[in-house]
């Protein structure tokens, strides 16, 4: 592993450690949902359906060993 890669990983770990320590100091966060106030058993799904709209198929050539560089293939349709 080259030195620069060790340094990058080190810096990421350092950032995570300090980030966790800083987040401990921040506890005043908004509560954007009202899940605590749902009346028990009040949730009813009365309508559910699904309509198939269509489909699209893309194909890409597989890598042939290491020798040949891959070609990007165009999409093909199978409606």
């Amino acid at each position, binding site marked *: 592993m080259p030195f620069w890669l*060790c340094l990058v990983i080190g810096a990421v770990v350092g950032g995570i450690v*300090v980030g966790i320590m800083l987040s*401990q100091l921040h506890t005043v966060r908004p509560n954007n949902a009202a899940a605590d106030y749902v009346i028990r058993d009040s949730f009813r799904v009365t309508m559910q359906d699904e309509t198939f*709209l269509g489909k699209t198929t893309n194909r*890409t050539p597989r890598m042939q060993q290491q020798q040949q560089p891959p070609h990007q293939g165009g999409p093909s*349709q199978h*409606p």
Partner: protein
Amino acid sequence: MADMMEYKCPACGGKLEFSSTEQQMKCPFCDSVFDVATLQSYDEALAAAPESDMSWESEAGSEWEQGEADSMRVYHCQSCGGEVIADETTAASKCPYCDAPVIMTGQLAGELKPDLVIPFKLDKEAAKKALLQHMEGKPLLPKIFKSENHIDEIKGVYVPVWLFDAGVEAQIHYRATKVRRWSDQQFDYVETSTFAVRRGGNIAFEHVPVDGSAKMDDTMMEALEPYNFAEAVPFQTAYLSGYLADKYDTDAEASVARANDRIRQSTLNAFLQTVRGYDTVNTEHDSIRLEHGEAKYALYPVWLLNTSWNGTKYTFAMNGQTGKFVGDLPSNKGKAWGIFFGVTAAVTAVLYVISMLLQSGQ
């Protein structure tokens, strides 16, 4: 194709074109193909979906009775303009929001009386203990901040909140995809199927609280949640004894938007959880109607401490019922950088040594 209207691709939002070879609508951007009749009914369903409606009826609060109002005193803070009330046996001297001296300005006049109150359950000692605990185990908190806190200044305040009830009727349209992958000898295939998914139904909420005091930070009140509403009792002045009470200065109408936002978010979350078995799900349209909304005016107990440190104001608050404690703390920037560089150097050195050892071993 006389009434050929413009359709948007349900998969990517691009403008669809009619492909005469396939006799279907085709998306030039993502190559999806759609049946015209399906698209038509899909668009009609979207257009027919009702708009969201979030109106409320509010008859919150009531008039104070003569005897009750007589025993209450109003105090005015000359520093922040806040007004708090206390009963005649409780002498208020400092403002709970800014710690400046308050002066008594008279008795209650023309105010609403709260419908409900959640009484204080935890005393000042519990609040002081919680504050000390709140500052434990936080390496980046400047040590000197702890020692300079005027912890005895912590005050019990009844904060005015509006409580909203709502029955919700929702209709939500999603666009979902299923992805299938396979390979043969030459190619990898990715097949994406697009679906229009609909959900409709009901859900109900009760006692969604919104801070009614402009002096109390709204986010802080939300961070103190949840309060256990089962312990709320009809308001009586006796509960105020020994505590300060704030009066609302943001009315129910102005507060309802926040409750609506939270109810809406929870409704969307609840229905989204029923859309399963897809690889991606996007919400395309929703109509969320609130019915028979009713507001109530209540007082919630909060222990509040305001301090200044290095020219910045810090506020700590404890839920006077559950003991939940919140408050943003200052950080020691120098120490934060120190830890960052220390950890970075240590991890880098260890990794580098290990990779050198591995290399020489080969």
